[in-house]
């Protein structure tokens, strides 16, 4: 799970709740524990793009869950209420994103406009922030859209405009929403796991091809056969054992084909 948060005050409750450790020597404040990572981007489109790209570069695995979390203005919701962005637009841009909503949750889904500066005018049913659009655009380069989400807690609205906002409130609001945030983090993590290919297949593929002699075409054929073996319920460890003494890549492909041939019919 990669969390991208604009401000330290927004991040603190998350850092504490998950016991994240700060990594020293990073160009941006970066916290982590096991597979949970949090980066503090700073405010605005350019900073959030850079922070997201930084995480992408360091952890290049595809289809990880990504969450942009923070405070936002809203035209209709109360302060302290959380929403998920279902439509993200940006002032001055025609590009519009619709993060597919696959998580069942009580959190309302709202439109969100990413602006270049804090908004003082509010439209009904519209949220306002300064990062989501750029975050979404960047994270979707490496992850499927369902796994990239934007959660915002309302910090200001027509009744309590941004001029009355006190930064220390950000931590309290985020903290109050920790159970719901945790639900999203858990669900997105599970969703990502549900589409993750069996990592053993690629490990086995690289062990076998390292033996040498595999052309690009034969490597692709081998990869495809190993995936099929896995789909057909073949034990990959046992399969590797059976292939120990097989000579050429051509013979190996034929051998696997032979092993699978009578398993290819649905039971």
């Amino acid at each position, binding site marked *: 799970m990669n969390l991208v948060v604009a401000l330290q005050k927004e991040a603190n409750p998350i850092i504490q709740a998950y016991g994240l450790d700060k990594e020293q020597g990073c160009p941006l404040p970066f916290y982590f524990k096991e597979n949970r990572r949090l980066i503090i981007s700073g405010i605005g489109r350019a900073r959030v793009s850079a922070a997201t790209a930084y995480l992408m570069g360091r952890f290049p695995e595809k289809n990880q869950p990504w969450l942009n979390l923070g405070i936002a203005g809203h035209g209709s919701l109360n302060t302290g209420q959380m929403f998920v962005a279902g439509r993200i637009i940006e002032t001055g841009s025609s590009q519009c994103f*619709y993060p597919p*909503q696959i998580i069942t949750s009580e959190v309302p889904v709202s439109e969100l406009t990413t602006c270049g500066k804090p908004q003082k005018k509010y439209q009904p049913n519209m949220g306002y922030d300064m990062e989501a659009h750029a975050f979404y655009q960047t994270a979707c380069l490496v992850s499927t859209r369902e796994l990239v989400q934007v959660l915002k807690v309302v910090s200001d609205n027509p009744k309590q405009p941004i001029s009355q906002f006190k930064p220390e409130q950000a931590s309290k609001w985020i903290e109050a929403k920790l159970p719901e945030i945790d639900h999203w983090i858990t669900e997105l993590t599970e*969703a990502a796991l549900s589409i993750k290919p069996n990592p053993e297949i690629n490990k086995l593929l690289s062990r076998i091809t390292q033996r040498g002699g595999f052309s690009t075409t034969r490597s692709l054929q081998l990869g495809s056969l190993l995936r099929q073996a896995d789909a*057909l319920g073949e034990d990959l460890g046992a399969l590797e054992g059976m292939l120990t003494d097989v000579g050429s890549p051509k013979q190996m492909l034929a051998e696997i084909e032979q092993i699978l041939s009578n398993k290819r019919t*649905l039971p």
Partner: protein
Amino acid sequence: MINSIYLENSIREHPKARSILSRFPKANVLPCEHYKEVFNPAGQNFRLQKKNPALILAKQTGKLLHSIPPSYGVGGSRNFYFSHLLNCLYDCRYCFLQGMYPSAHFVHFINSEDFMSVIKQTTEESEEPSWFFSGYDCDSLALESITGFAGEFLPFFSKLPNAWLELRTKSANLQVLENQTPFDNVVIAFSFTPEEIGKQTEWKVPPLDSRIRAMKKAASMGWKVGWRIDPVIDSTDFKKRYEELFDSLLCNLPIQQLHSVSLGAFRMPSGFFKKMEKTYPSEPLFAGKLEKRAGMMAYEKNLEKDRLTTCENLLLQRIPKELLFSCKSPVV
């Protein structure tokens, strides 16, 4: 069941859109300019969306009717399909929709008046009967409670005797048929696979016995019924399973109520197949005895021939030859 609804701005005030929205007071409703903004972007995952698909209410402004090859029909020479809905409530692993569409959201085109007008016009262009297939991009009846499609189109077709409508379905809820006096130019086409194969490949689909009961009921009300044995899926005990299926279908349907039976092997454009395999890498069906022939993935030639011949023979022992139609894949 529906948590998110996207609504095209141009149909915000359309009575049908308003009526559907009123049935989902808790759904989150989001505007969009055109359904393709939501449906078409690259980088979506069909499998993840299938967990919780959204509903998109849209107006079909593109082509409303599409021709289909005569070999896919059931006796007619003028064959068309039209889609009031893209995608399906059910989740059959062999379904080509998961390879064809970037998204699993349901897109419902609410401008039935436009579909009706082009169907009427097309029918009147010829004295030959025209066939209209409604279950190409969806199941015709599975989302009836939302779309009200059959409730609207059955009365329309009842007044258009030279136009035939095929409703193709795996639904067991045929309430809509009870509300309408049966008439001749409609076929309720039920898709079937043997139970053991269905259990491995058809998710969220009502159980076989309840669909057979629904078929029996539809026939007893006076509707013409079809069997769609498509796709034929290879499995162990193939002949026995298909024989049992055909026997139980025949047991529950007087032959005079059977309009047609169509038969087609599992086949798929290879581009769709590739996407499906990537989406469901652990799916045994996709690791079956398949091969690529002229851009299509299909069972190995001899296997396909054998399985289709077996089904054909089993069927011809039970039904008159004139009722059987084979959907030939482009390569045989």
